[in-house]
């Protein structure tokens, strides 16, 4: 059962006293004064936020807290009213979504976006970066892209195996179940070897046995040097794999810190649970079988 046998939980990610907006030793994303309103509603209002590099950061918060909106803003799918932010030292304000993805910041969607009338394998191959055959003129000359395409296919097949979708490779994505589509989308995002993967509720609807194996996989990504930022409502998963937890409520970052510390924070328990003040947040929100965590 234990997953993090080969990876250690990263510690010492922050500088100074832990509080919302605390600076990080090596941040990959730095955001300042990001606001986004829908009508009168301030969906996102983040003063300062840093995401640590080569760590797994969980973004949690109640429904409507602004997590998805923040994802959209950071990846260029939506434009903030104010604010600036950078990825890997490069300013991203005004950069279109496809370019942020090319820089190595790849995301998935809460409402799954499998490409229904493409096969599972085609979905995967679309995820690879820098394909010569995606140029109009080059595409007409198969001998210029065939070899690269075969390599991409090999890589796709390996990932599909990992995600238990290899038997489905020739099916249309429309034929997959909801959970399988989630898996496909995550696997597809990994085809581009991103520096930062941003997963919006990756495990929603995925069965527990597979969740365990995917958690291992996410930990493996970190071991390879990737940074992971994910939104999740399942507190066990959050506790289990994250190095850092950021809590949002009503558009603002209300708390952040290492998982153990954050889960005990009264502000968090308040935002999440209201009256269940004395309960362990994991037991209230999580599944029945409590994952025992190896203390490092």
């Amino acid at each position, binding site marked *: 059962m234990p997953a993090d046998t080969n990876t250690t939980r990263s510690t010492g990610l922050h500088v100074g006293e832990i509080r919302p907006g605390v600076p990080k030793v090596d941040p990959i994303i730095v955001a300042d004064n990001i606001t986004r309103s829908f009508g009168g509603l301030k969906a996102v209002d983040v003063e300062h936020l840093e995401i640590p590099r080569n760590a797994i950061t969980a973004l949690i918060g109640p429904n409507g807290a602004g997590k998805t909106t923040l994802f959209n803003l950071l990846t260029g799918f939506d434009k903030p009213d104010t604010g600036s932010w950078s990825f890997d030292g490069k300013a991203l304000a005004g950069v279109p979504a496809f370019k942020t993805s090319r820089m190595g910041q790849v995301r998935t969607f809460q409402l799954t976006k499998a490409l229904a009338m*493409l096969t599972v394998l085609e979905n995967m191959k679309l*995820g690879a970066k820098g394909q010569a055959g995606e140029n109009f003129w080059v595409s*007409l000359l198969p001998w210029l892209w065939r070899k690269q395409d075969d390599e991409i296919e090999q890589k796709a097949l390996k990932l599909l195996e990992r995600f238990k979708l290899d038997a489905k490779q020739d099916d249309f994505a429309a034929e997959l179940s909801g959970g399988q589509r989630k898996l496909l989308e995550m696997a597809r995002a990994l085809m581009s070897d991103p520096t930062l993967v941003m997963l919006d509720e990756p495990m929603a609807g995925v069965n527990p046995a597979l969740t365990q194996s995917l958690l291992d996989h996410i930990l493996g990504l970190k071991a390879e040097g990737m940074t992971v930022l994910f939104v999740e409502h399942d507190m066990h998963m959050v506790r289990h794999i994250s190095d850092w937890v950021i809590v949002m409520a009503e558009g603002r970052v209300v708390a952040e810190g290492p998982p153990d510390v954050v889960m005990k924070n009264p502000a968090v328990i308040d935002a999440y649970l209201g009256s269940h003040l004395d309960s362990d947040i994991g037991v209230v929100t999580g599944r029945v079988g409590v994952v025992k965590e190896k203390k490092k």
Partner: protein
Amino acid sequence: MDWGAIFSNTVVWIISPETIAYALATVGLAVHFGYAGLLNFGQAGFMALGAYGYAISILSFGFPWWAGILVGMAASVVFALILGIPTLRLRADYLAIATIAAAEVVRLLFQTTVFDAFTNSADGLGGYHEGFRAANPIPKGVYGFGPFTYNETDWWVRIFGILLLAVVILLTWLLMRSPWGRVVKGIREDEDAVRALGKNVFSYKMQALILGGVFGSLGGVVFALPSAVVPGAYVPSLTFFLWTVLLLGGAATIFGPVVGSVLFWIIMSFLANVLPRMADAGWLPFMTNAQASIARYILVGIALMLIVVFRPQGILGNKKELTFNAR
């Protein structure tokens, strides 16, 4: 009834220039709608630009015939850019509305007397055939068998059209099996997903719009080759016939437009031959001869509705598309 005459009047449409022109323009629509998911309701405008580009550059500027074709293609590229730049960033429906309007603007510009010196306004253009016919490698004479008996000029138009169609189909096939085609089909399914994977969605939509538009202009050229260019031919109903052809054959198929176009014209000419004769023979007591020949348009309209309802994937399309789209 003279079934022999009906038969020979009908089968000649298999290789008529109109059939080839419709097939060409419909391959363009297949690129737009079937593969890239772009709703173009102005393909008649692209055809008009091809036909007029060809005729005007020969008549007014003395270009050789092949340069006239290139001018027609270039005009359609410009038209695609004008249409695409403002609308391709918006939702798909906006492109649809813009294309209907823009195609009408194009037709009315050719029809108005303002540019009479170039367009001959409502009367249209003719007499630009010399260069094309001089390039005909077929010696003078009458060739063929049965209903397919034509002189060298008629054969040259057909052979040239079929060659163009073959090139266009080959190009489409090459593109759609390549990574480029994968991106374009991905955009049809969900453009945000494709954007998230680092593809410049706007650029691919533009490329698809231009490509299908150029195919449309080649359809216009073949439409113009045998006789004349008249603005009245490029009305919205031409676009809707092309859509019928597309949906009949299968929107996301390589050969669907050819199959659809041949079937469309065979059915149209069969009805055009049969219905008036039936009226004359007194089989349709409620219709006159003239009414009967118009009735075919009603039947084609009904057929289009039936296809959309009962076989949305078309004749050559994949059955699964039906199941999935019914979601």
